[in-house]
Structures are given as C-alpha cells and as structure tokens.
C-alpha cells in the first residue's frame, strides 16, 4: 500500500509545530521515492503522510555501492529491500588531510544513516549527518518499527489545534 502524501495546508510559519519537522523520520527507502516537494523549499523539505513535513530521515540498509569522489565526498548506495537511495558523506578538512581516518564502510555492511534530504540533479539523496554500523537483527527491528510508524504517518494529521 503506497503511503498517501498529502501537502500540508498549514502556512510555512507553522511547520515547526510538527515534531516530525525536527526529527529524523524513520522511513522505508521505497517511501522516499514518492515524497511530495514542499514549495518553495522544494529541494530540502517534503510532505509525507497526512500533511506532515519532514526534512531529515533515518534509514537502515545494506551498502550496495561505494563511490569516492576525490577526497571531498563518499557516495553510499543503501538498499533496505524496498528501494535504493544515495547517501553522501562530505568529508571534513581533517578527514581530507588524513584519508585513512575516514570511517569507511564496505559493500555488504549494514548501516543506519541519519541525515537531511536534498535533491541534486533531480535525484533525491541523503546528506549524512551521522552513521553507524548495525547488526542484521537491527535491520529486521527497523523494518518492524517503520511499519508501525507508517500507520501513524498515514492516519495522524499534523493538527496545531490539538
């Protein structure tokens, strides 16, 4: 069942009243492909579920591809079974000076990624704020957690009158 993403009818000044706006929303990667952009911030803020507004996500999946672009960024493609998305890690000047210090994962590693959403060259991606390796049971738990939270997103509206 696709998650119905309804644009928020609240003015932009009230978006911050929705707790979802400030947290890293736990979502399936498959749901990210159907996000609705929130104008005028169409590349960083998105509508999801029943008029909720999000700008950051938490994803759990397996790394299926790693691409290093010079010393400045590392692209990971994460697969959680429902979809694949690119997650980019921008290296700090300290990490650029010492490439061995960069915590680099391997293909097949299971990781949890938290970061903000961005659209680059018409492709949705996650700019990593923090990431950690997790064990396979954590991924199963993450699936069940997201399944449960999905019901909240679909039914509970962003209502400032409550």
């Amino acid at each position: 069942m696709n998650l119905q993403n309804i644009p928020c009818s609240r003015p932009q000044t009230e978006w911050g009243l929705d707790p979802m706006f400030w947290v890293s929303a736990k979502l399936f990667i498959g749901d990210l492909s159907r996000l609705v952009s929130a104008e005028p911030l169409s590349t960083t803020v998105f509508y999801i579920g029943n008029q909720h507004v999000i700008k950051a996500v938490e994803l759990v999946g397996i790394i299926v591809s790693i691409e290093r672009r010079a010393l400045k960024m590392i692209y990971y493609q994460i697969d959680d079974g429902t979809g694949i998305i690119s997650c980019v890690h921008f290296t700090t000047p300290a990490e650029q000076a010492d490439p061995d210090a960069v915590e680099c994962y391997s293909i097949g590693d299971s990781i949890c990624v938290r970061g903000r959403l961005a659209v680059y060259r018409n492709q949705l991606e996650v700019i990593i704020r923090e990431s950690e390796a997790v064990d396979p049971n954590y991924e199963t738990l993450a699936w069940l957690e997201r399944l449960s939270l999905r019901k909240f997103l679909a039914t509970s509206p962003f209502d400032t009158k409550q």
Partner: protein
Amino acid sequence: MDLVAGKPVFLEEIVAKGADFIGQSARVTGTLHSYSPATESAVLVEGQSALVVDTRLLGVVKYHVGQTYQFIGVLSPPTAVSTDTNIDDVRCATDVQLHARVSRVVDGLDMVVYRRAIMELRTADIL
C-alpha cells in the same frame, strides 16, 4: 547503471516458482552448504530448499561452510557450468541461479523474526 533494490525472497519460493523470478533483483538468506572455487559458485540451503549462487562478481571472499549468508543479486537462468546440488532431503532450484553482487555474513540473525517481518511487510504491500 541504476541499481535495483533486492527484494527479500525465501529459497522455497524460488524453488517452487523459479522461472517467475528471472530478471528480478532479490535478497536471499541461507546457510552455506558448499562453495566451489573452480566454478566460483556457492550452494545456499534454507530448510528443504537450496539455491546455487554465482559469486564471480564478489571478488575474493573467504567463505565458511555452515555460516549464514545473505546475497543480493539478480536471478537469472543457470550458466552452463554445473554445480553438484545433490543434497539429501533438499530440493534445489534448477531453472534459476542468483548472480550475486553483494554478500554478507548474517550469523546470529533471528530467522523466525526475519521471516515474520518479511511476511508483515508483504501483507502491508511494502515489499
């Protein structure tokens, strides 16, 4: 090249309807029964079902028989190189093979919870 997400699939489903999965990207989990460095293929067993996995794309990996592995790849018709799949009380998928591009060891994975989770995701039409 755009990668496609590997949908979790059980080995008994592939054994039962292997032809239906050809061309699809899948994630399979099972115990490593055997590995042949000559043909670069592994035999994965889960319960009464087995699947041959082509590991040529994975490079040099140390495989340990008896460990639980998860492979992500594309299900395709089997290659010409044959692999011995005669295992007692186990049915092996003969019309399909997994060409793996990602592998990982998942020892300690709670398979009961894993199966239940996948069934729940399918019921919710997410997978």
